């Protein structure tokens, strides 16, 4: 429930949802949705409960008993591999009184014991027992009690979960974006692995602000990152093959139903995103000719899968080194707050290559709360959060702009029909001058926000 009364809440929310839907083809959106309590409450129920939300990577829970704490919306789940090797995700809430039993962020255990009354669950979610069962629960069959679990699905080592089991399967949901994901997060034979603990920081902006930024906004780089752009060439690698303006045939945006990715390529087929020369020996033979061709010329990918998963694979970052890859989650913490979680990944083939790991860490570090590059974004996004909660934008129903790439806006943006660029809707110069990525993500937002609510306590009338 939001801050307003029920009917006011739902008519106000409905109005903003409809304004978003009708604005997409005009290239406008209500600015207010980027910080509004009622919208946020509706997002938790309508988007986060039934979307595929990224929970973790297979390589984080390799052994039986390994677990990590992850969230769907704001709900705390424990993602674990049970004793039979199955992946499970349980709500951290005992079925007796609802107490939480997981205090750590990661660990290994075969059982979870609730601290309140001592109910104990196996890591497959089943109740194993409780103290004084013979005295207190003679007629209760422990097999009737199970922890609430999320519905899980995986793609290329990525584990996603959702609370409500309706809508498309993960593969259907990812759709054409699978083509890009294979290229970005599975380019070598052994696949990618998460290296260490994630960067985590709490920031004062709405989850959509950063999800949108990483879904194809290269346009902000010149203003926001001017200081970092001028960093001396510590380590840019094959980035130097690009002309200074990096535009035209070198920059693209690919949009699919629920995702958008911008990428930068060169004309040099031996670029391989700056990987060591032996990358050719490790290249994943499952990739198609077109995927291989694109990877050979690739410099970076920055993309967002709606709602809050971002994938990055890049030659360098801000002159700080690379190549590096990351999965990011924009973990909602309120209408104007987000926890950013950034996991560093490398192809398993390079995990023991110290020189590679050093450079890759630098790229990943550059885009973090400690990073020379990202810190400028964070300050600016904080300001968006501050302004978009304003009463002025609310009362006037003020609109933001996302018209780039629409008719009459740019001679520089062209739709590309070329199998090398995959099955998405691809535009040349799209990262810089096409806001199709924002429109794509807000279309997904509209679609999910306008769908009837699910569950017994839905706010829909």
């Amino acid at each position, binding site marked *: 429930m939001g801050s307003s009364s029920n009917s006011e809440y739902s008519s106000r929310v409905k109005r903003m949802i409809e304004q978003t839907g009708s604005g997409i083809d005009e290239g406008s959106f209500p600015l207010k949705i980027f910080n509004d309590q009622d919208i946020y409450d509706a997002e938790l129920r309508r988007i986060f409960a039934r979307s595929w939300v990224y929970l973790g990577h297979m390589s984080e829970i390799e052994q039986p008993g390994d677990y990590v704490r992850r969230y769907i919306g704001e709900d705390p789940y424990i993602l674990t591999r049970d004793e039979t090797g199955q992946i499970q995700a349980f709500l951290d809430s005992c079925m007796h009184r609802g107490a939480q039993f997981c205090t*750590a962020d990661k660990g290994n255990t075969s059982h979870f014991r609730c601290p309140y009354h001592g109910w104990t669950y196996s890591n497959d979610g089943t109740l194993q027992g409780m103290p004084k069962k013979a005295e207190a629960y003679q007629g209760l069959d422990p097999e009737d009690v199970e922890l609430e679990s999320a519905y899980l699905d995986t793609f290329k080592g990525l584990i996603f979960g959702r609370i409500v089991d309706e809508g498309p399967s993960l593969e259907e949901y990812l759709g054409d974006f699978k083509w890009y994901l294979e290229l970005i997060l599975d380019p070598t034979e052994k696949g990618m692995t998460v290296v260490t603990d994630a960067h985590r920081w709490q920031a004062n902006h709405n989850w959509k602000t950063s999800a949108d930024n990483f879904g194809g906004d290269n346009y902000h780089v010149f203003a926001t990152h001017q200081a970092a752009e001028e960093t001396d060439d510590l380590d840019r690698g094959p980035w130097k093959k690009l002309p200074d303006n990096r535009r035209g045939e070198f920059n693209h945006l690919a949009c699919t139903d629920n995702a958008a990715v911008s990428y930068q390529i060169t004309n040099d087929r031996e670029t391989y995103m700056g990987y060591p020369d032996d990358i050719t020996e490790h290249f994943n033979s499952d990739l198609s000719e077109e995927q291989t061709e694109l990877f050979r010329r690739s410099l970076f990918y920055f993309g967002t899968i709606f709602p809050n998963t971002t994938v990055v694979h890049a030659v360098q970052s801000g002159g700080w080194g690379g190549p590096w890859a990351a999965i990011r989650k924009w973990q909602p913490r309120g209408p104007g707050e987000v926890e950013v979680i950034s996991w560093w990944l490398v192809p398993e083939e390079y995990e023991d290559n110290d020189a590679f790991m050093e450079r890759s860490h630098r790229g990943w570090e550059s885009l973090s709360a400690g990073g*020379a590059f990202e810190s400028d974004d964070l300050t600016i996004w904080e300001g968006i959060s501050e302004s978009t909660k304003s009463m002025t934008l609310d009362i006037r129903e003020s609109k933001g702009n996302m018209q780039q790439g629409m008719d009459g806006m740019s001679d520089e943006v062209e739709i590309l029909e070329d199998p090398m660029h995959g099955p998405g809707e691809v535009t040349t110069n799209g990262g810089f001058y096409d806001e199709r990525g924002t429109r794509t993500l807000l279309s997904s937002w509209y679609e999910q926000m306008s769908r009837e609510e699910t569950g017994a306590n839905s706010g829909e009338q």
Partner: protein
Amino acid sequence: MRESTTPPRSDSVSPDTQHRVEQFLYAEAELLDTFQLKDWLALLTEDIMIKVPIRTYTHPGTEQSEFSENGYYLRDNYDMIRERVGRLKKSYAWSENPRSRIRHVIGNVRITEVTEESYTVTNNQHVYRSYGDTPENDTLSARRDTVLQRGEAGFKIADRTVFFEDSIVSTKNITLPLL
């Protein structure tokens, strides 16, 4: 497991040494607080590494350190630190424009290792950060390990690791003067 604890070694250094080390750290902190970063840079050796490891709250009883040994928010050598200093001077380095008001309070200074070339110093610190025209502020609590190289011209900082209390960084960025 927390960061490794070190036995008290107050008997191993003279009050004069303790005093000189503390005074150095206080003076250095003032350079950071006042963004006199060029002068601060001159206090570093050219083979310095500054590190801020990731902290994760692990399963109770586990032997594994809370601090990552291969994941850092910041793990920078001299060249990278120099670049950071250079960019902070630019008006469009938005992360510090407007500039944070920063104040170090340093305490519990202990010299834990003495060699002919260096002192290893551990201190606790609260670093306060106020920002912009708002009542918002952050306090970053940390333990800091520093290796001070001994030379005729005084001390130089040869290595530094900052162990934050927070497992989720709760300030908008980790800018150099906060370390």
